[in-house]
């Protein structure tokens, strides 16, 4: 058994090393056909005209390649600015013709030809400069108009703005990867992800030889589980992974190419970065779910709960949305709930659902019913755990991949204090952002009170959606425990928690006076609840943050804690320890 375990570990390390190596492996060669496939004719011609010697030249790393693409795009932008942008000399002419006041029709005489350049400039100046009509003007005002035209008209119309550049970098890099990997992606997928998986499972299965029961031996002696060098290394890797995934996907095209065959097989389309992410995410939940199942095979509660998160991730979060795409239906995760699914009310998603007939409308109604009916009703009957540790994808990853790190969450009162304002602030942020987005959707006006709804939603996506939920939420597993996002950031957890705290039948019951204050419950609470504080005074635990994972109850050596749904009456219990005659309650004293 020990033998199997060590082979497994070796395979895991080998597979994971291959995976990392493949990140850097390919050469990159830009081919004219690739450019033409990803750009419209005019832009393709422009880009190719500016690409110098990059065409058909082999570049050894994606970093150099992307840098060259950026330069090319910048040159292309310079080119269109030169062609379509309004030049200093033209502004001087306008100024000279604008005494005493500027008249907008002057632009027709300045750019009187029927060339595309002159037509564009005439129209653009009317669009962006008509506010100056009939006014005395300065050169600064005219320059401002010219700058706006360059930024908002010239570049987006003829060149590559920020978004177009980002998309261009990604798609051209992906199309330009050459070498064995893009030719045989499946083989390389098996060599990396396949080996990692097999190795992990071989490492995990020998645990079956241990007697069923709590498997926490040695946790605080292990470098990976106690924020030692290995934990810091893993955390850094995860953080880098998320930063690249969310902000620099053009560098990880090789990894995406690896899963292209899988994506084509499931949805019929080539893979994007979020397919890669979903694929790895699901595998992590499945493999580490097996580990959790083996660890807790003495507890039916954990068996059911873990099987549930494994199922919901695989079916609802990963397969069904891809299959919907294959059927030309909207990509939709039926178990994702606003405000965790913060873009649910974004215009493009609403439009997409409403454009997709009865299924689209059903999805829209379903999503709203989850928010207004399922959350309060199910939390009332079962506690927020029905979602957080049975259904949710973030919770699913935390309970499986994150389980080895649950003991790292801070139990300090100061951490609780930060948690309470932070998670509710995110909820407020999500509500305000969504309100603004909907206001814009219905009125067409992007200015809401003092903010621009597009800016706010972009900030939310970058700060909360990518930064908090991804980079911090998972990257910090080995540093701050496996529920950093759920505890400090998830607006849905905040909403579920408010219901759980104020209107629910759920509680963790403390068993009379049996607590011995050992601290296992608090140590292994992933949400950082100081469970012992309640248990040792004989009081039930009712906390908005509790996700009902049930591990406190499992690790308790004296059978003190139990997750229960019972009558709401006396749910909090009295702080009194059973078994001592003549002693008054703590609270009364």
């Amino acid at each position: 058994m020990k033998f199997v375990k060590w082979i497994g570990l070796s395979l895991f390390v080998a597979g994971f090393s291959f995976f990392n190596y493949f990140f850097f492996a390919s050469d990159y060669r830009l081919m004219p056909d690739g450019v033409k496939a990803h750009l419209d004719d005019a832009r393709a011609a422009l880009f190719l005209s500016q690409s110098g010697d990059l065409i058909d030249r082999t570049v050894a790393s994606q970093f150099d390649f992307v840098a060259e693409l950026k330069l090319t795009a910048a040159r292309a932008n310079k080119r269109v600015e030169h062609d379509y942008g309004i030049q200093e000399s033209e502004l001087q002419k306008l100024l000279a013709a604008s005494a005493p006041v500027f008249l907008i029709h002057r632009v027709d005489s300045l750019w009187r030809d029927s060339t595309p350049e002159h037509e564009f400039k005439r129209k653009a100046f009317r669009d962006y400069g008509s506010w100056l009509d009939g006014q005395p003007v300065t050169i600064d005002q005219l320059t401002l108009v010219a700058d706006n035209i360059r930024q908002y008209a010239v570049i987006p119309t003829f060149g590559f703005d920020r978004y177009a550049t980002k998309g261009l970098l990604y798609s051209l890099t992906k199309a330009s990867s050459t070498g064995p990997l893009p030719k045989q992606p499946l083989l390389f997928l098996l060599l990396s992800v396949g080996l990692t998986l097999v190795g992990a499972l071989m490492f995990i299965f020998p645990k079956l030889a241990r007697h069923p029961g709590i498997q926490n031996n040695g946790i605080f002696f292990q470098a990976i589980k106690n924020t030692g060098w290995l934990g810091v290394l893993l955390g850094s890797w995860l953080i880098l992974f998320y930063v690249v995934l969310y902000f620099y996907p053009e560098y990880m095209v090789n990894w995406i190419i690896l899963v292209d065959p899988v994506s084509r097989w499931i949805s019929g389309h080539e893979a994007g970065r979020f397919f890669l992410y979903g694929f790895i995410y699901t595998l992590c939940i499945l493999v580490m779910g097996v580990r959790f199942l083996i660890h807790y095979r003495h507890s039916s509660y954990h068996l059911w709960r873990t099987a549930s998160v494994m199922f919901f991730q695989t079916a609802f979060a990963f397969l069904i949305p891809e299959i919907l795409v294959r059927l030309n239906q909207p990509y939709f995760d039926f178990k994702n709930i606003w405000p965790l699914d913060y873009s649910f009310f974004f215009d493009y998603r609403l439009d997409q659902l409403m454009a997709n007939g009865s299924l689209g409308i059903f999805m829209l109604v379903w999503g709203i019913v989850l928010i207004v009916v399922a959350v309060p009703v199910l939390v009332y009957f079962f506690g927020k755990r029905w979602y957080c540790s049975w259904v949710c994808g973030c919770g699913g990853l935390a309970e499986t991949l994150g389980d080895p790190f649950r003991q790292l969450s801070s139990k300090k009162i100061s951490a609780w204090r930060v948690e309470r304002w932070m998670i509710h602030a995110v909820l407020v942020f999500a509500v305000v952002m969504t309100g603004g987005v909907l206001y814009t959707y219905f009125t067409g006006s992007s200015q809401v009170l003092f903010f621009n709804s597009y800016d706010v939603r972009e900030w939310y996506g970058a700060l909360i959606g990518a930064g908090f939920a991804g980079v911090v939420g998972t990257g910090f597993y080995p540093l701050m425990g496996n529920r950093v996002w759920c505890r400090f950031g998830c607006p849905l957890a905040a909403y579920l928690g408010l219901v759980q705290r104020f209107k629910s039948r759920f509680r963790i019951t403390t068993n009379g006076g049996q607590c011995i204050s050992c601290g296992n419950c608090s140590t292994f609470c992933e949400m950082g609840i100081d469970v012992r504080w309640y248990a040792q005074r004989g009081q039930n635990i009712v906390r908005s943050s509790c996700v009902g994972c049930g591990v406190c109850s499992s690790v308790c050596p004296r059978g003190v804690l139990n997750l229960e749904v019972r009558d709401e009456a006396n749910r909090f219990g009295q702080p009194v320890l059973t078994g001592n005659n003549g002693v008054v309650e703590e609270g009364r004293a």
Partner: protein
Amino acid sequence: MKHIVIVGNGISGVTAARHIRKRSQARITIISSETTHFFSRTALMYIYMGHMTFEHTKPYEDSFWKKNRIDLVFDHVVRVDPPAHQLILKSGQSLLYDQLILASGSRPNQLGVSGETLDGVQGLYSLADLQRMEEHTRGIQRAVVVGGGLIGVEMAEMLRSRNIAVTFLVREPEFWSNVLPLQEAALISRHIRKHDVDLRLSSELGQIVDNGSGRVKAVITRSGEQIECQFVGLTVGVSPNIGFLAGSGIQTARGVLVNEYLQTNFSDIYAIGDCAERVPVLPGRRAVEQVWYTGRMMGEVVAQTLTGMPTPYQPGPWFNSAKFFDIEYQTYGHVPAQRSPGLADFYWEHPRGEKGVHVVWEKDTRRFVGINSLGIRLRHDCFDRWLRQGVSVDFVMEHLPEANFDPEFSERHEPAIASAFQSYLLPTAV
């Protein structure tokens, strides 16, 4: 402002301090020479096993004490001078008190065999013991644990967690069968063996052998067998830690003698927890009870007494719990190790042999007396209520499902237990 000084920062002393603070503004000082801050002694094993660090075993953050104006003194009391209301500390300082609470706990017993003072031979009670055990067991191959009680099995589990081979010498015919009825004791013995512990029943330690440089090399049992080992855990019970009271005039026997108010022969000195000995003994209880729960209860009681509400120590129905490797144990009421006249009992064991329930009642009245449970969690409040009410065993068996405290989705055994109980009763009913 009166000054209450507490000697010992274990569960008894700390509970007393906390409850006094809730009820009064008195100045409170806790003296301990073990640690600066309160930690949970019951969690020592988990530090060794790597489940927790020492920090995790502290039930209150360090800021708690200052916030609650409880002064902590890290020093050792060498002498108590009751007439002068004075404590002399090891540092040479002295401390005046108005009221004194002795909560000095226990110390491990010695067996009186040769070799007991060798390096690598020790008991396990204090944090210092744990640190010594850490050093003594680093890199060793085999250990011998002597004494079939709760600390013994904990030590065996601790050592096994580090893959150290363990021979476990138990004097009784089954593990802890001086406390548990044979059926439960046998079940636990089997389970201990499943964890690869070399459990030797009915065997006693003869002597401990020196390796020539003052360290343990082997033990020799009474039957003459020599077992090579590099560590010996001596867990043959604990005794009240009262040596520092010698000559103080405070009356002691096994422990510090206290009346029903936990008061010693000096009216301003009290003793609670492991170090206290009740005279007269409460019916159905021991004079010295070295259990977490009783220490805590005495702390609660003495706090009321010292804050204007004199309260006699009257523990409710007995309860206790433990965990033997993977098997949890709970007990409520009285389940004697030996069959007692006038009592009847019923034992049910799960076919897989890792769960069991033992119920005891009065033969004549059918009044429920007590229950032992292995591998099934029971609700303390139910049994506390039923024992106070004096319900019948039939009532208990009928209402057993209400008292179940196992996690949701757990396999439920009440129907099997109830039907086994019925068929057990049938022959006598005829």
